[in-house]
C-alpha cells in the first residue's frame, strides 16, 4: 500500500470538493482523504448551492457528493454540475443501497456510486488500488455501479 502511494506522490494531488450536509461526515472524510498524499480536499460544501458556488474558487478535479442533501437532490446536482462544469467529475456516496440509486446516478452523469456504510476503506480504495488518473471512475455493472476515489479496475457484483 505504501509503495503505491509513494509512486503517486510525483504527480500533483487530485483536488477534491466534499459536499455533505453532515459536518461529522465532512470532517471524517476530510481527515481520511487528507491522509492520502495524492488527494487534496480543496473545499467543503454542505449543500448543492454552496458546492456550485465554491467550484470556481476550489477548482476541484472531483466532487464527492452525498446523494441526500438539503434543497436539491443529489441527482439534480449532478445534472447542474455537468451542465455548468463539464470537466468536473462527480462521485456519489450514499447510505442507501446501491440498487436504488446507482443506475440513476450513472445515467445522470455521475462517475461512480459509493455506499457509505461500506466504510472509509471503500472510498480511498482500502486494500484496492487507490484513486489516481482520469480513468478510475468507470465502475459499472448491471443494476448499479460502485466506484472509489482511486481507480478501481474490477467490477463488483
Amino acid at each position, binding site marked *: 500500500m505504501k509503495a503505491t502511494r509513494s509512486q503517486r506522490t510525483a504527480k500533483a494531488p487530485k483536488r477534491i470538493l466534499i459536499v455533505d450536509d453532515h459536518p*461529522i461526515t465532512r470532517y*471524517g472524510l476530510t*481527515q481520511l482523504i487528507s491522509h492520502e498524499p495524492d488527494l487534496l480536499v480543496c473545499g467543503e460544501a454542505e449543500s448543492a448551492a454552496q458546492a456550485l458556488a465554491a467550484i470556481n474558487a476550489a477548482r476541484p478535479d472531483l466532487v464527492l457528493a452525498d446523494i441526500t442533501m438539503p434543497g436539491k437532490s443529489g441527482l439534480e446536482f449532478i445534472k447542474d454540475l455537468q451542465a455548468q462544469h463539464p470537466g468536473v467529475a462527480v462521485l456519489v456516496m450514499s*447510505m442507501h*443501497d446501491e*440498487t436504488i440509486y446507482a443506475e440513476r446516478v450513472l445515467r445522470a452523469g455521475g462517475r461512480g456510486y459509493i455506499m*457509505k*456504510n*461500506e*466504510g472509509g476503506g471503500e472510498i480511498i480504495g482500502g486494500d484496492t488500488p487507490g484513486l489516481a488518473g482520469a480513468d478510475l471512475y468507470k465502475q459499472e455493472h448491471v443494476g448499479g455501479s460502485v466506484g472509489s476515489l482511486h481507480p478501481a479496475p474490477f467490477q463488483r457484483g
Partner: protein
Amino acid sequence: MPASEALRQSEERYRRIVETTHEGIWMADLDGVTTFVNQQMSRMLGSTPEQMLGRPVFDFVFEEDRAVVRQHFAEFLQQPAGKQVKERLRRGNGAELWVLVAASVFFDAHNQPVSFLGMFTAITDLKSAEESLRKSEARLKLQISRMPIAHILWNSQFQVLSWNPAAERMFGYTEPEALGKHPYDLIVSRAVQPQVDDIWRRLLQGDTTAHSVNANLTKEGRTITCQWSNTPIKENDGTVVGVLSMAQDITERVRAEEALRDAQHKLEMRVQERTAELQASNQALAESGEKYRRLFETISDAAFVFEAGSRQFVEVNEAALRLYGYTREEFLELTHSAITAEPEDSEAAIQLTLAGAAPRIPLRYHKQKDGTIFPVEISASTFTLKGRPMACGIIRDITARKQAEEGLLRREQELADFFTESPLGLLWVGPDGRILRVNQAELVLLGRTRDEVFGRHVSEFHGGVKAAADVLNRLAKRQTVQNYRARLRHTDSTPREVLIDANGLWEQERLVHSRWFTRDITRRVELERAILAISEREQRRLGHDLHDDLCQQLAGIEFLSQRLVSDLPARTTVRARAKEIAQMVQRAMTQTRDLARGLSPVRLEAEGLTDALRELAAGTRKVFGCDCRFRCDPPVLVPDHSVAIHLYRIAQEAVSNAIKHGQARRIELGLTANGRSVTLAVADNGTGIPSKLPKRKGMGLRIMRYRAEVIGGAVIVEPHPGGGTRVVCTVTEGLLPSGEERNTK
C-alpha cells in the same frame, strides 16, 4: 039549522059533488086559487093537477073573459047549487076550451062561502060526454077511490064521517071501522096529539091554512108520515061543522128525506170521526213529539237546535249543557257563535247545512263556557218548525278519541321518524333486489334522492357488485348478515365505507323483503387510516432520523477511525484495536441503516413503492437466497404514500409467508396499473395454502385484508396455477390520481 041538519046537508052536498064529478072537478077558494083539480080537469086544460094546484083559476081564463067569469062566480055565490054556465077556458097551449060548468059553493058553519067546486064538461063533445056520464060515474068513483089521497071528513067532534078507500089503504082501517072514531083512537099516537090538538083548534077557528105533516099510526101499528091538507067546513053562519082532510102518505118521502138526513148525519158522523181521528193523530203526533223530545234529552251526545236566521238556540239537551257548561237558561240566550272555537269554519258549515247538504263534520273545535277548547264531531241537519228554518246539531265530544288518534298518529310518526331520521341507513329490499323503501341516512350515504334510488337494484349502489349479490344470496338462504363490510358508491365519487346488517322478513316460506341496516364507518376507516398514517409517519421520521442523521454521524466516525488506523504504525496492537473500532462502527452503521429501512421502507416519492419493492426483492434474494424478482413495466407511480406503504406491507407479508410457510424458492412481485386501479401481485412456487392455517398466518392474512380495506382495496389469496399461492391486491377508484396528474408532479 041544527048541526046534524047542517051535516046532513053537507053530506048531501058532498054526495052531490061525488055524483056530479063525472068529468073535470076543480075546486078553488074564494080568491080563485085552485085547491083541488082532478086528472080529467087538468087533462082538459092540457096540464097536470100538480101544475094547477095553487094557481089562480083566472090563469086558465082568457083576459077578455075574466069579467064574465067573475060575474059567474058572483052568481054561483048567489045561487050556490045547480047553476050551470057555459064558459070559455084557456088551455095551456093557448087554445080555447068550451065547457059547461056546474058549480057548487061550499059554505062554512055560518053559511059563509069558503070555496067553489066546479064540475066541467067539454061542450065540444057534450053529447058523448052526457052519454058517457053514466058510464063514467062508477069510474069516477073508482078513480076517486083509487086516488092516493085519503079523504076524510070529520064532524066538529073530530069524529070520522067519511073515510074513503085511499084512507082505508093508507091507515088499514075500513070505513065501517073508522066511522065515528076519533083520530086519537085510530091514527094519532100520543106523541103527536099536542100537534094535532093545535091543528084542530085552528081548524075550528076557521083557519084554512092549518096544514100539517105528522106521524100517524096504521092499524098494523106502523108509523107513517102523512101530509095533511085540512079544510074547515062551515055553515053559512061560519060555524065550522066539519073538516075535510086530505092526507098523503109521505112516509117514503120522509124516509127518503130521513135517508138523506141519515146520510147527512152519517156524513156528519164521518166528519166527526175523521176529526176525531185527526185529533187522535194530533195526539199521537204530540206523543211522538214527546218521544223524540225524550230521545233528544236522553241521548248521550249533546244536541241542540238553533234558529237558522238568528243562530239563536231554541232547544238544547242535558248532554249539551253538561258538555258546554251552561245552564239551560244561559244556553238558550246564546247564538251558535258562542260555542265554536272556529267561527269561520262553523259559519261555512252552517251555510252548507242550511243549503241542504246535511254534512257530517268529522272534526271541529268547540268552546266551553270556561273557554276550554275541545274537539267534536258534528252531525247536522235542518228542518222547519212553525214555518221557520231550524238547524239541529248532534255534537260528540271526541277529545278522548282525538287523543287516541293523535297518540296513534304520533306513534306512527315516531316510527316513521325513527325510520326516516335513523342515523343508520335503512333499506327495504325486495326479493328481487329492488329497493322498496329507503331512509334519509341511506340517501345521504348514496348522495342521491329518493327518486334516484327507489325501485333500483341495490347492487347499483355498491362499489363491488359482488357484495350486494353476496348479501342477497345469504338472505335468500335465510341467513342473517352481520357486519358485512361493503363500500357504497356515492355521487361525489368518494365511496362510503359501510358495515351492513341485513335480515329477511319471511311470510309463509316466502321472502317478503329484507331490511338492510347500513352503518357508515367511513369516518372510522379514515380515522384508522389516519392513525396508521401517523404511525407510519412516525416510523418514517424515526427511520429518516436514523438514516439521515445517526448513520451519517456513524459514517463520519468510521471515516475518522479509518484515518486513525492509517496513522498508526502497522502491525501494532493499537492499530489493530483502531481497526476493530472502525469495523464495529461500520457494523453499527449498517444495523442502524437496516433498522431505518425497516421503519421506513418506502421513500416519499412517486417511485418510492417501486424502489421499495425492488429493494424488497433484492433483500429477499440476499437474505434468503431465493429467486425473488420484481417486475414493473411500464413503471407504476403511486404518489399516495399511505397506499404505497400499505401495498408494500402487504407485499412484505406475502413474501414472508411464501418463504416461511410455503418454502418457496421463487417469488415474483408485480405491480401494474389499469386505469384508476393499481394491482399488486405476489406469486410463489411454494406449498400453497394449507387447509388449516396456523394462527399466526391467519393473523397475517387478516392484517393484509385490513390494510387493503384501509386503502379501499381488496385482497384475494388464491392457489397459483403453477402450484403455490398467489396474493392479489387491487386498489381502485379515487384513491389514485390519473397518470397525467402524476407525471406533472
